């Protein structure tokens, strides 16, 4: 039984009913790292947001089920749903600067969620935050707890958000492009850290990224998305040995590789895009027309 099971999820915009996700299904087992890959606008972040119940107001769920640890979240009333998700899942956001409140110290930004939503005692929450800051290799955690976000580097801020995500021992973490804003050497440290924490805590990870290089390092399985449709689902081994969808192969060809300059950075061919558009149009025709 999968820990997370998304079944036939369809999302659309409230005002013009334009579909954002089209009949998306995926399964993630306990402790598994699953990559969601696609271009901007493909809907990969939307899947994570739907699971966590943090979709923008303009987006509505038009159909489908989201099962988390044996319960269909979409069948629960909102308050019960928030409580269930809050106890089981957490987010590592993309931009570490906008995700932290600039006018508040780091400490309460980690502990508030534990105290207010999960009902921990403040002293307990603070001890836990100190432990976790140590675990994400922050020197002098007690001092960092008293600092403000602007006093810290991008890599430090991302470490804090990772500590914060793991704070309540969630069983699932959605990591939404957690290293896109960082340079390559810091990216490597942060990915190493996330992978290590994930393995130690046995957390399942839904890893949203457009970088197939990153996927090949941290994920065990992946889904490739285009325009809200899943084109291919596979294990990482099988995918990189031989992607089955022509678009996946084109995406691999577009990925920069310093070991093969001629064979990389090839734009996705127009013919493949045209084929995908026709597929999507046919799908929309069949489901809404």
């Amino acid at each position, binding site marked *: 039984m999968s820990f997370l099971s998304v079944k036939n999820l369809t999302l659309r915009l409230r005002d013009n009913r334009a579909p954002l996700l089209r009949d998306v299904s995926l399964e993630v087992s306990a402790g598994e790292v699953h990559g969601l890959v696609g*271009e901007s606008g493909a809907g990969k972040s939307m899947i994570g947001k739907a699971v966590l119940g943090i979709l923008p107001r303009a987006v509505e769920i038009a159909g489908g089920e989201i099962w988390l640890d044996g319960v269909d979240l979409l069948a629960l009333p909102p308050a019960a749903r928030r409580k269930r998700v809050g106890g089981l899942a957490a987010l590592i956001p993309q931009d570490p600067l906008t995700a932290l409140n600039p006018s508040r110290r780091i400490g309460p930004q980690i502990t508030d969620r534990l105290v207010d939503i999960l009902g921990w005692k403040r002293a307990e929450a603070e001890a836990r935050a100190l432990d976790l800051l140590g675990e994400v290799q922050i020197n002098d955690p007690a001092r960092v707890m008293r600092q403000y976000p602007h006093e810290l580097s991008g890599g430090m801020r991302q470490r804090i958000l990772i500590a914060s995500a793991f704070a309540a021992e969630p069983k699932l973490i959605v990591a939404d492009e957690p290293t896109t804003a960082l340079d390559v050497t810091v990216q490597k440290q942060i990915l190493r850290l996330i992978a290590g924490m994930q393995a130690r805590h046995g957390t399942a990870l839904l890893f949203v990224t457009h970088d197939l290089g990153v996927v090949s390092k941290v994920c065990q399985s992946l889904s490739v998305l285009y325009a809200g449709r899943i084109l291919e689902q596979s294990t990482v081994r099988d995918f990189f040995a031989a992607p089955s969808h022509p678009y996946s192969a084109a995406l691999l060809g*577009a990925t920069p*590789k310093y070991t093969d300059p001629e064979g990389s950075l090839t734009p996705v061919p127009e013919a493949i895009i045209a084929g995908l558009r026709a597929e999507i149009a046919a799908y929309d025709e069949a489901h809404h027309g």
Partner: protein
Amino acid sequence: MAELYTVENLRLSLADMTRKPLLGAAPRIEVLRGLSFSIAKGEIIGIVGGSGSGKSTLGRALIRLLEPSGGSIRFDGQDITHLGEEALRPHRRRFQMIFQDPMSSLNPRHRVGQIIAGPMRLHGFDQVEARVVQALDHVGLPRGFAQRYPHELSGGQRQRVGIARAIALEPEFILADEIVSGLDVSSQAQVLRLLEDLVRELGLTLAFISHDLSVIRRLCHRIMVLYRGEIVELRQTAELFADPQAAYTRELLEAIPLPDPDQRWI
């Protein structure tokens, strides 16, 4: 080949406002610590380094958005190190910049046509309308895009507008500062291909700043690796990748995740 830029012992320091005492001057941070190199006409040079290495500061000094505190920069034979704004104006058209974030470098209230036309009007170009059309053609955007606003475009299209605005002035040198780091891989590939073609077609000289060596490999003839404001390596691209000399270059290379599950990495 003739040199477009000759840079000697370039130094640049900035005031560290985070450590400024209540009274008195802020301490200075040495961002560039004595760089010497040249850029040939028609060359594509890559400038690589981590955050804080000084790569953007170097770029901004080359096009004199910043004034060096020591050393010299010669552009096409003329010393521009300390030229004042008035004296720089005739040169400004000749070196242009493409910015990292196209959303914040394109005026959201102006249509694409106005955005491209603005600098041309400022520099007294004639036939501006026709040149806007030509610039859109060059970057592969439909002519109708002149009527659109930046928010109506995708990230890759916005970056093309930034390129169109720069090339419309018929510059000799273009500085591209992390222009693909905000784009996904397929738009990245398109923008880099476009830049590669334009440089050849228009005979441009290009400095391409990035933190990612794999993006730079295909495009650049030579690569400069910066670390804490100093050049640790400056060599032909193929040589640098075949046999990186500086420890920092190797560190940068090893940090890149290749799309290959068998690469030893973590």
